[in-house]
């Protein structure tokens, strides 16, 4: 297989927690390896606290990895030293934030981040054409009429419109990959679909790749080609979206799916009212991190950390119990 757009190998990030000089380490992301192909939308699914946002920030180089590597177009990201190399990466990998209310600087008009993106990453755009280019970018994300929207301050726009500004700012540098960290979770239901459709559209039209981070499994199924399921910092299942979500193998994926409210499903409260929460993984011992919530846990789960293993075409799961389809 040819080199994917982005590949991580054993990506790990620990945080020091507790008091000063404490030696406790929170394992936010542990040994995560995945790939994102060109023009592919990959969904990263998990509960809050599972390490999803940490992965986003690792990819965007806000955090440095404790261990492991990110390869972008075959090049190791941690070896990028010069300003020019790092700027190049920042131009290729953009990020959309979860909270459209805090991710835009309130002191500037909404065109500011878009303009900066163009200034930094598209030197070929002449100064007098910049304004034109900003408006074009606003048009791409459906903020029309761009001329009128451009003069506004963030607080004058609705949440959905702001999130579109977030996408416009990400698009300004003509990236190859956009890391979207829960881009729709704070938006109204009626607007969400619009933003999801925008992602598919950008993929079709501009050939962009997306890492779509979410806890909403149904929306992951709607836009994504492939799904990665994260639990307590570990990748527990991965595969083609339809396959993973219709025939989940890992008990955690099954739990996630059972919690999805489906307005068209038959009436009746489902029996499994799970009150567990993903553990804070501080100095973990060996063993499966899901074992305490898992209905199928066996003795082996207490002592051996399950590794991802192939159970089908492009399908991997980290569970001692899961069986491949017959």
């Amino acid at each position, binding site marked *: 297989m040819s080199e994917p757009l982005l590949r991580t190998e054993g990506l790990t990030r620990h945080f020091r927690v507790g008091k000063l000089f404490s030696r406790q380490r929170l394992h936010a992301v542990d040994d995560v390896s995945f790939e994102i192909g060109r023009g592919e939308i990959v969904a990263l699914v998990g509960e809050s606290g599972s390490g999803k946002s940490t992965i986003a920030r690792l990819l965007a180089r806000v955090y440095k990895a404790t261990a492991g590597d990110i390869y972008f177009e075959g090049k190791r990201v941690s070896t990028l030293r010069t300003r020019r190399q790092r*700027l190049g990466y920042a131009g290729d990998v953009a990020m959309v934030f979860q909270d459209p209310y805090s991710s835009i600087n309130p002191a500037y008009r909404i065109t500011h981040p878009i303009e900066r993106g163009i200034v930094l990453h598209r030197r070929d755009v002449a100064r007098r054409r910049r304004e034109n280019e900003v408006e074009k970018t606003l048009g791409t994300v459906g903020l029309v009429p761009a001329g009128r929207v451009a003069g506004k301050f963030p607080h004058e726009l609705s949440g959905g419109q702001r999130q579109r500004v977030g996408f416009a700012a990400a698009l300004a540098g003509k990236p190859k990959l956009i890391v979207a960290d829960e881009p729709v979770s704070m938006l109204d239901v009626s607007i969400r679909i619009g933003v999801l459709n925008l992602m598919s559209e950008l993929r079709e039209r501009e050939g962009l790749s997306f890492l779509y981070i979410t806890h909403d499994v149904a929306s992951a199924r709607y836009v994504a080609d492939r799904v990665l399921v994260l639990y307590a910092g570990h990748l527990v299942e991965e595969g083609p979206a339809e396959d993973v979500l219709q025939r989940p193998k890992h008990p955690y994926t099954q739990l996630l799916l059972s919690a999805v409210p489906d307005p068209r499903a038959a009436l009746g409260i489902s029996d499994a009212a799970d009150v567990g929460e993903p553990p804070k993984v501080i100095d973990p011992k060996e063993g499966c991190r899901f074992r305490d919530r898992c209905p199928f846990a066996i003795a082996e789960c207490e002592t051996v950390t399950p590794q991802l293993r192939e159970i089908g075409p492009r399908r991997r799961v980290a569970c001692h119990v899961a069986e491949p389809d017959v």
Partner: protein
Amino acid sequence: MRRRDFLEAAVVRGERKRYVIVHEILPTMTSLILASFLGAALYAVLFAAGLQFIGLGDPNSQSWGTMLYWAENNEALGAGMAYWAIMPGVCVALLGAAFALLNYAFDEISSPALRLRKLERAGVDAERATAVPAVSPDPKNILEVRGLSVAYASEHGPVVAVDDVSFDLRRGEFLGIVGESACGKSTLVYAIARLLGAPLAGEITDGQVLFKGRDMVTLSDRQLRHIRWRDYSVVMQSAMNALNPVLTVAAQMRDACEAHSTMNKRQIEERSREVLRLVSIDPVHLHSYPHQLSGGMRQRAMIAMALLFTPELIIMDEPTSALDVVGQRSLMVQIKELQEQLGFAVVFVTHDMSLVRHFSDRLLVMYAAQVAELGRTAQLFRKPLHPYTDGLLEAFPSIHGPKEHLLGIPGSPPDLLRPPAGCRFAPRCPHVFARCTAERPRLLEVDGELVRCFLHDQPVVPVVEAKEGVA
């Protein structure tokens, strides 16, 4: 500050550190810097005046401080020459006030969000229309809302955020109120709970809220305090903000108990443990601070506080929106169980219809400050009458069945300052026809449900006439 998303966004964009500090952080901090500068200046003046007053300054110089000093030394007060002391004192006080006002001005100039919020309360109808008929309330209903309207003041005149909303709530019933943000759903429940206080600046302009037969709108603050929390309680949207971060859960429960009852310390402690157990939080967490609890537990603690007096009505404003799917689900199941166990009625505000699907008895769909549809939940999901409800249902990608392309609802809700002349949903409606843009639809009764849409108002007589014409 370092964790602000827009700073992270700048870093991700590839900005240099210097740029981030000068261009991203400084502009947002201007007001803060100016405020501390003015504060320091005022402090310096007061300090200098104080030093000179006790005689530490140059006694030959002319300043307010030395004037006070001489006034005191020469026993001006005793000699009936109080103005010696008053004039410089007044000057110092005026200077302080001037600095404070300057501060506000800088604040407004430097923050674009404040700049535009010059409120003008003109136009909000002060006289409450007396058109509401005095129908005696039905004892089966715990809450009857009749023709309730709420307006906010804005610089362009009043914004009607709740427009003539009426509904009944039976004892022990679960009513879901659904709608997009800014449709007025939160304002509606705040108005019902009489929580439209000063910062919100909303005003009930018309209508009645009959809670157990008493009109809440006309109750005084003292009367309100008697029934608030004891008879009805409110669970706010974000437990993170609603819980005081510097007090333990126990202290906050004690505050609530002391404000609304005469329980003694032991009873309060006991009751607090009891309600925590009700929401399946281990009572050991009673003496934890909010930040020590997880998001789900904080929300449960909020609900526990609402249950302190076992009220007959609990108003919940998006209590689950800060949780993820699994947490939402288990909290909803828990609320439903508690409701069945304790028998209180619930008004549940949410923007997520699927959330209340299996839990609410009836649903009220709000659009642009008005009731779009009101009906039994099951029937509303099976056969939505209003195109907006239909659109909301179609906005959810499904986890089962064939994958289909969804459109959601194109466009955005109307500006409530200038609502469309006809139906407020007409600009976004897929079934719009001539009458929709010309006339305002009224609420119609269709199969026992209420809906505000001309699609269900087929004029019967003209159809017959048309047939006759053909014949």
